C-alpha cells in the first residue's frame, strides 16, 4: 500500500551510532525490516556477534579520538552514494551526587553521551547538507527534559543533545536536513530495586517501555513521512512527563 511506503525506509542508507545501547541490535533489525538498504553500525564498544547480514556494516570507533572517527567514517561512507539517516543511540548513566562526581567521570559522561553525537553528526551533517536531504534522530531519555536527582551529569549531557537537535534543525532546515530527538521513559530495572515498583505505579500507563514502543516513532522520524517535523523533542514515556 502506498501510504505505508512513506513510513518505510526503502533504499535508505542509515548510520547508527551507539555505545552498545541495549536495544541497538533490535533497532538494526527493525530498520532492515522497514526496508533499509544498508545500516552502518558505528559502535564504541565491542562488535556485535548476532548481526551478520550483507546489509549491515560494522565499525568500531574510538570516540575519544576525533580524527580517527572522522577518518574511518569517511572511508566507509565513500562506498555509498549518499547518507539518508543518522540515528544516535548513546546512553551512559552515571548515578552519583553531584559533589562526588570526579572530573574524569564528568568527561566520560560528556564524551559518551554528547561528544560522540557531535562527532557523528559532524560527519553526517557534512554529507547531508551537501546532498540536500537527510534525517537525524537522537535517541535520548526523559532525563534530558527535566531534572534528575543524583544524575546531574547525565541529565546535562542529554539536555545538551536536545539543544543540538533544536539548533542544528534551525541551521540545516534550508538544506532539507531534519533533526529530532526521541526521549524515552525509564526502562525496567532503571531504579534501585525497591523503587522499580514505585516508579511503575507512578507511570500513567503503569508499565515500562519495550523496544516495540520506541521503534515506530524512530522509524517514522527517519522516514519521509515526517517531512515537516524538525527541531523538536518527542517523548515516548507512557505519560510520565505529562504528569511530571
Amino acid at each position: 500500500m502506498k501510504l505505508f511506503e512513506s513510513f518505510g525506509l526503502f533504499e535508505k542508507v542509515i548510520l547508527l551510532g551507539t555505545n552498545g545501547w541495549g536495544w541497538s541490535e533490535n533497532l538494526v533489525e527493525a530498520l532492515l525490516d522497514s526496508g533499509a538498504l544498508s545500516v552502518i553500525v558505528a559502535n564504541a564498544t565491542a562488535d556485535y556477534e548476532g548481526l551478520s547480514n550483507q546489509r549491515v556494516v560494522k565499525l568500531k570507533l574510538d570516540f575519544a579520538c576525533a580524527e580517527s572517527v572522522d577518518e574511518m567514517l569517511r572511508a566507509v561512507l565513500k562506498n555509498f552514494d549518499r547518507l539518508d539517516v543518522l540515528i544516535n543511540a548513546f546512553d551512559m548513566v552515571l548515578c552519583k551526587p553531584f559533589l562526588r562526581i570526579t572530573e574524569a567521570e564528568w568527561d566520560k559522561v560528556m564524551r559518551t553521551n554528547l561528544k560522540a553525537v557531535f562527532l557523528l553528526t559532524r560527519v553526517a551533517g557534512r554529507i547531508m547538507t551537501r546532498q540536500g536531504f537527510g534525517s537525524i534522530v537522537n535517541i535520548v531519555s526523559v532525563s534530558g527534559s527535566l531534572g534528575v536527582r543524583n544524575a546531574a551529569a547525565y541529565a546535562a549531557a542529554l539536555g545538551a543533545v536536545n539543544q543540538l537537535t533544536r539548533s542544528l534543525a534551525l541551521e540545516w532546515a534550508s538544506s532539507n536536513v531534519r533533526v529530532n530527538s526521541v526521549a524515552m521513559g525509564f526502562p525496567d530495572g532503571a531504579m534501585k530495586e525497591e523503587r522499580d515498583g514505585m516508579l511503575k505505579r507512578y507511570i500513567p500507563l503503569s508499565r515500562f517501555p519495550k523496544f516495540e514502543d520506541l521503534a515506530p516513532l524512530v522509524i517514522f522520524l527517519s522516514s519521509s513521512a515526517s517531512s515537516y517535523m524538525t527541531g523538536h523533542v518527542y517523548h515516548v514515556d507512557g505519560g510520565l512527563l505529562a504528569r511530571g
Partner: protein
Amino acid sequence: MLNRFSLEGRVAIVTGGGTGIGRAISLLFAKAGADVVLAGRRLEPIMQTAEEVRRLGRRSLAVKTDVTDSAQVDRLVEATISTFGALDILVNNAGIARGIEPSPHDKQPLPTREIWEWTDDMWQKGIETNLSSVFYCCRSVARHMAERKKGKIINISSAAGVRAAKGLYTYSTAKAAVIMLTKVLAVSLAKYNIQVNCIAPGNIEVAEEKGSIESYQIPFIPMGRLGKPEEVGVLAVLLASSASDYITGECFFVDGARFAGVLPIGCELKPWGSCEAL
C-alpha cells in the same frame, strides 16, 4: 514493522473533517484501513470527504454537527457507535474562530484589538469554539473507550498554543488549554488504556488559502515552506495506530522548525566573550 501503523478495522471520528487538515487526516485514515465518520457544521464539505473515503474502499458517514453544542456532539458519537458498532479513534480538529481575532491563516496581519475592546461574548465564543468543543467530544467518547479498555484521542492544537502572538487572546489561550487538557486526559484515562496526544501544527497550507499566506509566513519558517495537511495527517495515523501505544500526554510540533528556536531567521549571534579569541 510497518504494519504497526495500520488502522485496519478501526472506526474514527474526525471533527472538521470536510476541509484542510481534517480532510487530509480522514483520507489518510481511510488509506490506513479505518472507517471514518466526518463531523462538521457545513454538510457539503463533509459529504464530499465521506464520498472520497468510500472511494478508498472504506465505510463513511457524514454527520452535521456543531461541536460547541454538547447535545449534538453526543448524538454524533451515538450515531457512530450505532452505525459501526464501536469507536476507536477521535480526532478533535474543528476550531478556529475567524473574524474574531487574527488567525494564523490570515492573508496578512490583521490589526489587533486592544483587550479592552473585547466583549464577553467574543471571549466566550473563541473559548467555546476552540476549547469547550474539545472537552465535549472527549467527554462523549471517553466512557465508551473506557468500557472497551482501548482508545486513541488526538487533539489538534496549534503552535500558537505554545508561543504567543499579539492579540491572539482566545485562540492562543484555548489552544494552550487544549495541550493541558490533553495531558490531564492522558494521565486520567491511562488506566483504561486510552492514549491522548496532541499535534501542534505550525503554518499549514490549506487549499482555499493557497498562495495567499505564503509570502507573509514563509520568511519565518526555517524550512522555507508551509507544511502540507498530509504532513500533519501522517502523524495522526501514527498516533491513532498501535505504533503509539506507549506515547501519551505528548504534544507534537509539526512546524518545519519554526518554533524550535529563539531568534527569527536572519538574526545571527556574533561571537562574544572568550569565544572571540578562537
